[in-house]
């Protein structure tokens, strides 16, 4: 082996690019339609153990009962229970491109019936870390109807509200 060969190590770059089409399924499609058409959050409640599922799903994860059409409206307000701030470049999985910046992402407990709620991960409008507190109340802010696509991003962010 020549000295050059000895020193080098070769990589091979072989690209095959795929795109995938993911179906939302019947229950999630209904929930996404409600967001798009009516700016409403439609979750589902297990008729047996009363657990609330967001997004709605066909079978209860805890007791495996069929959830049928036991729709419940959630939100539009909720409570912040946790939050983080991204400081590194992140790839947007929908485009494969690097996202510019991200506002703080939070776990928001959406208001639900009889004091039961459901969690959702979404963005906060508030970017000042000192102003974000556990337990603060927030409300969903939707995009204008003509811009909504039937995706989680139809909600732009959650805005802090006074109560």
């Amino acid at each position, binding site marked *: 082996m020549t000295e050059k060969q000895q020193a080098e190590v070769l990589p091979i770059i072989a690209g095959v690019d795929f795109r995938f089409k993911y179906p939302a399924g019947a229950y*999630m499609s209904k929930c996404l339609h409600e967001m798009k058409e009516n700016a409403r959050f439609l979750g589902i409640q297990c008729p047996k153990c009363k657990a609330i599922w967001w997004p709605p799903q066909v079978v209860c994860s805890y007791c495996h009962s069929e959830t049928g059409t036991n729709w419940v409206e959630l939100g539009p307000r909720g409570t912040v*229970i946790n939050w*983080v701030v991204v400081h*590194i470049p992140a*790839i947007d999985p929908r485009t494969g491109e690097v996202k510019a910046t991200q506002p703080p992402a939070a776990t928001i407990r959406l208001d639900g019936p009889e004091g039961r709620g459901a969690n*959702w*991960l979404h963005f906060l409008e508030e970017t000042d870390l000192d102003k974000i507190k556990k337990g603060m109340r927030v409300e969903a802010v939707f995009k204008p109807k003509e811009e909504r696509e039937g995706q989680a991003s139809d909600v732009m962010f959650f805005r802090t509200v006074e109560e």
Partner: protein
Amino acid sequence: MARFGRRVAVVGVGLSHCDRSRSDVNKVELANESIRRCLDDAQLSMSDIEEVMVAEIDSLFGVGQSQMWYTDDIACYLKPGVKVETGGSVGGSACHSAVHHVAAGACDVALVTATSKGGGTREPIERFVAGARAQAAMTAGMHPIWDRWVFVGPLMLFAFMANDYLMRSGCTREAIAKCRVKAAKNAMKNPYGHLKRDITVEDVLNSPFIIWPLRLLEFCPISQGSAAMIFASEEKAKKITNKPVWVEDIVSAHSKQYWTDAMVPIDWGSQEAGAVALWKRNGITNPWKEIDVFEMYDPSSWAEVIWMEWMHLCGKGEAWKLVDRGATEIDGEFPINPSGGVVSTNPGVPSTTMRYVEAALQVRGDAGEHQVPREVKRAVGHGFGGTNWNTFILLSKDMP
């Protein structure tokens, strides 16, 4: 107590040297490195291996059906085998598969191989973008419509977990930093480890935020490396080695699809479910006293601390205090990760196999410089995957 149809023991282990880039080898050669060491360790040859379990996460590394490529170099040509994929816990799941096959009598000697060769040398790619791609690749394990759009990989999950613990337990950041420094000190004693830096608590506390409140040094690197283990039936094990490490039990627990669900309340569920099952099934009422060493899968020092509580090793809110006073050091009351853990060496696919390997080495007394200075009768190895699958193995010196 014998749990399986036949008793199973670990009769050989092997590790490769881990580094950010092992460009001197391709993927299958890297697998081969730890397999050759493992065969040497067991004093077996490739013809003694009856079945091979391959752990892999093809979607991350751009080679579909990698088991075809691996075949020659993993002593599997014309032999039966199984390929397993369970996210980061796959290194453990493949071992569980081997234990099942041997216990059931499908074979007497099974080899487990786990390799990770992500990335690879290229024109220097901006480090952050390489990290972003790695996180994006792992985000692929999340629900395409509900979770992916907002998540920034597993990093974000740990950031949420960390913030919640900070708010609930009153823990200090110094305690977490001490946990990280412990890992670094232990890794320096591990010849096969990746990160061997003499870092201090100040270094950790001053490292930049990656996803607030998570700091850079509190999280694991991405390494390339491989690991191998050989499991054998009782009869064969006694002929192969005079130091068999008995598999007392294996347990795994899995979680739900949507990661948002897993944050209510902040407890991902499967760490606790798996650990509780392991203690219950084996009559262990006080793991802190009854287990001698614990190799935990710690993608972050936060995980090592928080999961001590989730796994019932101590009470809620207590873990950070125990770590703060050194209880989990290599010579402490309850040594956790004397190998340096995943936070020092993280090839991903083999990371759980390495926890099992390290636990086995501790039981055998063969961990060299990072051997805990006490008799090890029982050790636990733990694995975790971004799918929130958790695997556990209970290894013992005495035959169950």
